[in-house]
């Protein structure tokens, strides 16, 4: 009996290193789990978690090492360096914010470990020719482009900008100004604000005094609600509110029907789009987390799926990089291919969607081939 036990233990000990070697796939995930962007970070965590579970069901085992950057580029860089030097991951998904992703991207070529950015919008990230940086989502210029395309038919004449003084805010507005110039829109107000302030009334009053046709907004989560509340309070009523991503695309925002109705926003993803598995992902997400998936969740899901699936067939960073560059995918995020075009390197030319909140629900309204509802224009309270 005792001998039998010893032999079992010895057998187990011998088998263990073999087992451990059989699952050496290590992938890093940098995300804003705490800090100002934590709410959106949670959506990314949920999406990535679902991807890992789905891959497990398909028999792909992966050790995911999660790091928190707290929304701070300094921490994001430290996290990336820890992942590649101490943990020995062969690929990294993340970070979420533009500021963090941009800093980490600048070091990826130094460590030669591929970085797949799931949802950061700053254009520069994939414009510097980095070989190890890939981006799934559409960059900031597409946010403003698709929004302006959606309202082009109604011939607006003037535009005002209200945006957070962050990387995402400033870069989105910069390209929006270029797009507006091409459309012949005249800029009548430009208000950059510091996040987390209780009072935006003065800035909004200035915008109201300029009486613009379009108000173009860039804000992260709760600021969007604050701004729209105060806009209603002071009676700012343009022909359309255009919200570029982030704060204007959350379920919480749409539930504030009094202030959010008819706000138009650009998004990377919706669950009523006809991409493979998008609707199914939306249903499963709602069942699991009891809330609507934001586009961030879909970005993180698809980025994680692509990274892990590709890495499972290519066990070194160099092979992984080549496979990401050569491959193409089709899933909940539509067709994905990392290509070089118009100054971008390894950038997925993603087609963005325009949605409008109609009685508390996000409805896809543009481009026409993806949408069931029509845009309501002009805006009315």
């Amino acid at each position, binding site marked *: 009996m005792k001998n039998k036990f010893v032999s079992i233990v010895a057998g187990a000990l011998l088998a263990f290193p073999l087992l451990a070697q059989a699952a050496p796939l290590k992938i890093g995930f940098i995300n804003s789990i705490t800090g100002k962007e934590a709410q959106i970070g*949670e959506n990314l965590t949920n999406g990535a978690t679902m991807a890992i579970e789905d891959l497990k069901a398909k028999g792909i085992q992966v050790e995911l090492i999660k790091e928190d950057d707290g929304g701070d580029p300094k921490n994001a860089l430290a996290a990336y360096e820890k992942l590649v030097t101490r943990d020995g991951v062969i690929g990294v998904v993340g970070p979420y914010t533009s500021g963090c992703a941009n800093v980490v991207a600048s070091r990826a070529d130094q460590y030669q470990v591929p970085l797949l950015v799931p949802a950061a919008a700053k254009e520069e990230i994939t414009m510097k020719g980095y070989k190890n940086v890939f981006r799934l989502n559409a960059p900031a210029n597409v946010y403003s482009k698709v929004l302006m395309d959606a309202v082009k038919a109604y011939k607006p004449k003037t535009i005002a900008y209200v945006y957070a003084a962050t990387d995402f805010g400033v870069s989105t507005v910069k390209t929006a100004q270029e797009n507006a110039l091409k459309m012949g829109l005249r800029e009548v107000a430009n*208000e950059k604000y510091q996040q987390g302030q*209780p009072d*935006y*009334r*003065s*800035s909004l009053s200035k915008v109201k005094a300029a009486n613009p046709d379009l108000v173009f907004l860039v804000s992260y989560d*709760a600021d969007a609600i604050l701004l729209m509340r105060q806009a209603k*309070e002071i009676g700012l009523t343009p022909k359309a509110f255009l919200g570029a991503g982030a704060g204007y695309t959350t379920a919480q925002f749409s539930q504030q029907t009094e202030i959010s109705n008819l706000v138009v926003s650009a998004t990377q993803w919706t669950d009523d789009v006809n991409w493979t598995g998008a609707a199914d992902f939306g249903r499963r997400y709602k069942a699991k987390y009891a809330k609507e998936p934001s586009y961030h969740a879909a970005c993180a899901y698809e980025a994680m799926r692509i990274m892990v699936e590709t890495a499972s067939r290519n066990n070194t960073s160099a092979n992984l990089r080549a496979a990401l560059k050569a491959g193409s995918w089709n899933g909940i995020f539509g067709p994905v291919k990392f290509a070089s075009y118009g100054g971008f390197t390894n950038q997925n030319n993603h087609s963005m969607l325009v949605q409008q909140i109609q009685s508390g629900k996000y409805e896809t309204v543009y481009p026409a081939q993806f949408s069931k509802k029509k845009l309501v224009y002009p805006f009315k309270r």
Partner: protein
Amino acid sequence: MSFLQPLISGILTGGVYALAGIGMSLVFGVMNISNFAHGDLMMLGMYLAFFSFTLLHIDPYISLVLIIPIAFMFGYMMEKVFINRVIHHPHQNQILLTVGLGLIMSNTALLAFTSDPKILTTTYSSSAFNLFGDISVSVPLLLSFLITCLITVILYLFLSKTATGMALRATSQNREAAQLMGINVAKMSAIAFGIGTALAATAGALIAPTYYIHPLAGHSFLLKAFTICVLGGLGSVVGAGVGGIIIGVVEAMSSTYLSSDWKDVIVFVIFLAVLLFRPQGLFGKKGGQ
């Protein structure tokens, strides 16, 4: 656009800043402690208002009747258990303790309430009325301001007319002398910290209907409260009140006439100028700390 619009919204927002500043200043005056957990105490007030609104269906302004005594007791206990142990220690120990307590509170809130910002939507959250035709005045902000004024008047009467209030001021003026005169300074410290906490929580509850509620929401107000205290003169209740209004108006004016990007720059330039020409603050005692 009218000059009055930023002036009015600045004064109204400044009122809430003032309330946060007064609590901090009172604690500093009586105990000579800079309370870096002040912002997190404000955050607790926001959550108290939020939960009494969503669970008990009490209007956030009426819930103050509950929040003020709860926060007072919380502050009183906190002083008894933690703060009084460092009252005679060097400033860096006190700062470490209060920063630590603040971190514990905000991170506990993060675990308990998650990082999803909560929005307290009342029927009047985004309502306003017009003054002189084109100046809009936010209803919740005006209510907050009136409540702030009321509380400040009550606090003033308490400090100047009651025996406890006079004992508090005596402790603030000279701790040793007050003790020699038979004042229980340990008790005064606990009372001051309780009142400070109650004022912070009140400021939090007052801003809750127009702001969002988040475990880290207190941090941006901590810096403001601290600036207001130093601007008005550390320990001066009147100074903190005036300082709050000044900061509110300067912010509103600079975002109207320059850009909201510049408002912090202007606030801190004024702050530095005051420190340079009047190091004791606008209403501070000369030769004080």
